[in-house]
């Protein structure tokens, strides 16, 4: 099972990304665990300076943007 983290400070963009990821996971019935993380310490440790950050299985995939649906889907399918 993939573990997905959305790191955010509570801004609108962060919540949107979280919502979008969950939606894609639900629609495609993916075996993925999604967590929303508000811990600044963890963000900094990962080197994320702009929110939202998207981390899949420990790897930072995007920062500061909401990636396109198609891209999110392929990441959530475990493709890179």
């Amino acid at each position, binding site marked *: 099972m993939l573990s997905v983290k959305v790191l955010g*400070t*509570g*801004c609108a*963009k*962060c919540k949107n990304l979280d919502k979008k990821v969950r939606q894609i996971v639900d629609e495609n019935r993916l075996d993925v665990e999604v967590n929303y993380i508000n811990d*600044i*310490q963890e*963000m*900094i*440790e*990962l*080197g*994320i*300076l*702009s*929110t939202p950050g998207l981390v899949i299985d420990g790897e*930072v995939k*995007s*920062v*500061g*943007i909401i990636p396109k649906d198609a891209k999110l889907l392929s990441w959530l399918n475990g493709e890179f």
Partner: protein
Amino acid sequence: MKINEKSKILLVLSLLLIWGFLYLYLAEITDYLVFSLLNLTAETHLTESIRFFLFEVPKVMLLLVLIVFFVGIVRSYFSPEKTRKLLGGKNHFIGNILSSLLGVVTPFCSCSAIPLFLGFVESGVPLGVTFSFLIAAPMVNEVALVLLLGLFGWKTALLYLSTGLMIAVFSGYIIGKLKLEKYVEPWVYKVKAGQLELDDENLKFSQRIDTGVDAVIEIVGKVWIYIIIGIAVGAGIHSYVPENFMASLMGKEAWWSVPTAVILGVPMYSNAAGIIPIVQALLEKGASLGAVLAFMMSVIALSLPEIIILKKVLKVQLIFVFVGIVATGIIIVGYIFNLIY
């Protein structure tokens, strides 16, 4: 639908042509609408208000779309992560200048001010240089620039851009010189920051065009309503409030007008879009440009919500110094504006 690189660039170029045409003939189009289609009588207050509104809204929107699009493309070349690397170990002053300039072109949202502050300070960017970034990023923003350009002309826009940068450079420089590191919350220096390598260097130009389009959708989607309301209020003031109504209150002769404008502006929080059309109308009725611009700068550069966010990493003393120095800078700029105009 997949559009290839070449046709996308062609599409953008043809849209630019249409843009140019609309912008050049906007006055004629508006007059045609007002006098031929709506058949309004010339020279009445109501007609003038409607005409002002129907001309200014599309003009500002056109400028907004164009500039936000290009700024979006420019910003796709920058990220806070890259900016941090560029600023690491930079000396004072040169570092402050570089940091202020990068503050303008790096994508930034005040909601990520804390991770950014931590990441910068931890990786060895000096405190004053970090502040230059944090001041320039909200102070010089593309929406304010567009509105000043559209409603006041390029000279005012340029003056705003350069004085905004100067405030960021000098405020950061002074904060650096004052050696205020002890007023940063101690836990900040215990954070271990990671380095992030993202492979966004080889984006194709068509992908950068997408970034520009995304920026337009995001920013215009957020501010259009403020612009319409702001210009509507402005249109009302434009035609109904008597000339020189504001002269005694916010005019050039009233020496206290600039500091008062800043004191009023600091706790206020609004985006530039909502405030500038009102500001333009005030100006027309006799308020001085210095007071009005100082008001605008203090509203967008310093705000209560941002100060509350910064409280997490800064002690009260440093927050006071920060607000005090920036506010003083804005007041000086306000007087400079009044001298020039």
